[in-house]
């Protein structure tokens, strides 16, 4: 709050009201409702329900397929986060160094940010098509018999590739602006101290980029957990089968496709707790950043 604030009583409440009402109706109510549903088994049409306590949660904990998709989600998130950060960092360092065409490269490398995830998924489907996908032909050059939708590993691979492709631009933008905000004097000093380019990068640039990287780490984990839904959904072509699934996609499959309200609500609650933990972490980080800036 500003020290020199206004003192009207009703105006601020009036200003806050729209936001608060929307949040109450579309955030707190659904969250509470979901919590309640997770303790029941409910007829899809809503005619009857049975209280099952923690039954839905126990079922999940004992379900190999749930645990498997939890495991996949972890591996998927780590891979997508690591690869998209690493590739974006390389590109950003190069883009920061070149003089000619810098702006063109920047544009070419960041516009994919605006591509919707399901469209990225459709593009992936075409690239990896079973009968004529260009990337499938490419894999065949290495003797890799790539079959999307048949082989679990191959399908997971395609999901990771598409998700990384979609995520590189955001990371690129952040890294590039991080690099460009490093003062000239620091760079010049580094140039004198450290003769090898890679040494300069690891000793000077990388530590200076660390806060950006740390912030991006969490953004990227959130991305791979939630925003990849559209990519997964298009990649499995409507049949989950033995394809890999992230936890968010499983909520959708069980709740929306399978009409198991209780089970999928329990899955939602588990995700809520997970995100809660992550965001508390993120929030503290942001607050710290604010202190420094």
């Amino acid at each position: 709050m500003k020290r020199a604030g206004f003192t009207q009583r009703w105006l601020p409440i009036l200003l806050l009201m729209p936001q608060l009402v929307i949040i109450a109706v579309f955030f707190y109510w659904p969250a509470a409702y979901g919590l309640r549903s997770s303790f029941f088994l409910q007829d899809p049409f809503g005619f009857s329900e049975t209280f099952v306590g923690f039954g839905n949660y126990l079922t999940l904990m004992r379900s190999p397929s749930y645990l498997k998709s939890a495991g996949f989600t972890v591996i998927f998130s780590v891979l997508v986060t690591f690869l998209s950060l690493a590739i974006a960092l390389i590109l950003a360092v190069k883009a920061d160094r070149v003089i000619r065409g810098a702006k063109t490269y920047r544009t070419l490398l960041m516009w994919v940010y605006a591509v919707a995830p399901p469209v990225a998924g459709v593009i992936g489907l075409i690239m990896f098509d079973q009968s004529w996908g260009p990337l499938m032909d490419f894999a065949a050059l290495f003797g890799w018999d790539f079959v999307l939708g048949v082989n679990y590993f191959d399908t997971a691979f395609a999901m990771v590739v598409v998700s990384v492709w979609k995520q590189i631009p955001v990371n690129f933008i952040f890294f590039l602006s991080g690099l460009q905000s490093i003062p000239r004097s620091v760079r010049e000093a580094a140039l004198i101290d450290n003769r090898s380019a890679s040494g300069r990068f690891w000793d000077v640039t990388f530590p200076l980029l660390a806060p950006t990287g740390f912030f991006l780490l969490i953004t990227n984990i959130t991305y791979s957990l939630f925003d990849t839904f559209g990519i997964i959904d298009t990649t499995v072509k409507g049949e989950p089968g033995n394809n890999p699934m992230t936890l968010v996609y499983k909520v959708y499959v069980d709740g929306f496709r399978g009409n198991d309200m209780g089970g999928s609500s329990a899955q939602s609650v588990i995700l809520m707790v997970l995100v809660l933990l992550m965001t508390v972490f993120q929030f503290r980080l942001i607050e710290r950043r604010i202190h420094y800036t």
Partner: protein
Amino acid sequence: MTRLSLAAAAALSMTTGAATAQTEITWWHAMGGALGDSLNQIATDFNASQSDYQITPVFKGSYEEALTAGIAAFRAGEQPNVLQVFDAGAATVIGASGATIPVQDLMTQNGVDFDIEDYISGVRYFYADSDDKMIGMPFNSSSPIMYYNIDALEAAGVEAPTTWEEFAETTAPALVEAGYIPLAQSHSPWIFVENFMSRHNLPFATNENGYTGIDTEILVDTPELKAHWTALQDWEENGYYAWYGAGWDDNQAPFEEGEVAIWLGSSGSFGGLMQKDLPFEFSATYLPYWEAITTEPTQTFIGGASLFAMSGKSDEENAATAAFFEFLTSPEVQYSWHRETGYVPITTAAYDLAKEDGHYDRFPAAEVGIQQLSLPAGENTKGYRMGFYVQIRDVMNREFGRILSEGVDVDDAFATIESEANALLARFGQTQG
């Protein structure tokens, strides 16, 4: 206001006046593409055939999405009059007995003649309750049949196999010799589980395949089914069978490209195959059976979907729905639907009309589906009724993928399917209070 717009306003008020005299009903469905066009044609024809009622079909996405949309709308009190529900969703809808009006009741209450015996025997009871009362009106009914590439079979010097033994011993080796992949198949749970059961007259679940009780248990961990899947796994290894994933089209495409000689698909795929102008001659015949299991193979279940009349509508609207169902089941409408899409005609009268018209002389393959549905029935060929069946199918698809792409042991996979499916069935029982 200009005179022109006044006239337009007057015209508008006149048309709306006419519209209010009509009873309007809605029909939610899941038929996209060319099928959707044929469906829209039925609606247009119905609207043109009389002046009291007006039906509007609305495409709601995939089968699963259409069902979910229908359920959600029902909970919000905004359900359509007619909802298309696919085979796997039948138990969910029929289980919620207040959600729909049994078509049989709807028809008789509105003075439409209804006799369940008019319907083809394979179609009759799938969407019926345990007292054989018809709840959902079979609409796009299909049956899994065996399509084959005539050129390929000729090149290999073999006939289309009638039994799996024949396939394994004669057909497949010859086709491999001739440079073809002998077999592919779309939708494993439907063709290689559900219809495997009905083709061999094996029980699929307790409680008469789930019709007579809610505490049903699935019966898939059986020697017959496992023997079939073990054989399939071997065939895949020998190059007799190829699996292209859980998606429908991915398995159909290699057949269309002439790589695969025999493809098990839906009788409803016939229209699409004709449309694609394939570079080879094809035909179709019955699904093979195992002689080791039975020497008297029975009919298959219908697949596809049916139409349910949602409850909570006014009497006028229900009368409109009944009139629409009457129109829909008339031999002419059924025949033209059958002719265009390949889905089977659901009444014997429509079937007779198709025969009379010489449809099957022109396209012998178009008759296979209905003939197969009219084969002798058995105590296990009526259909099946299991809750959360969409998820059970997902479990099957998952395990089949593991059998066929990861070499998972068939025994283990079927034990998993049975235990997970039974857990789902028990959970469904609990949702029913």
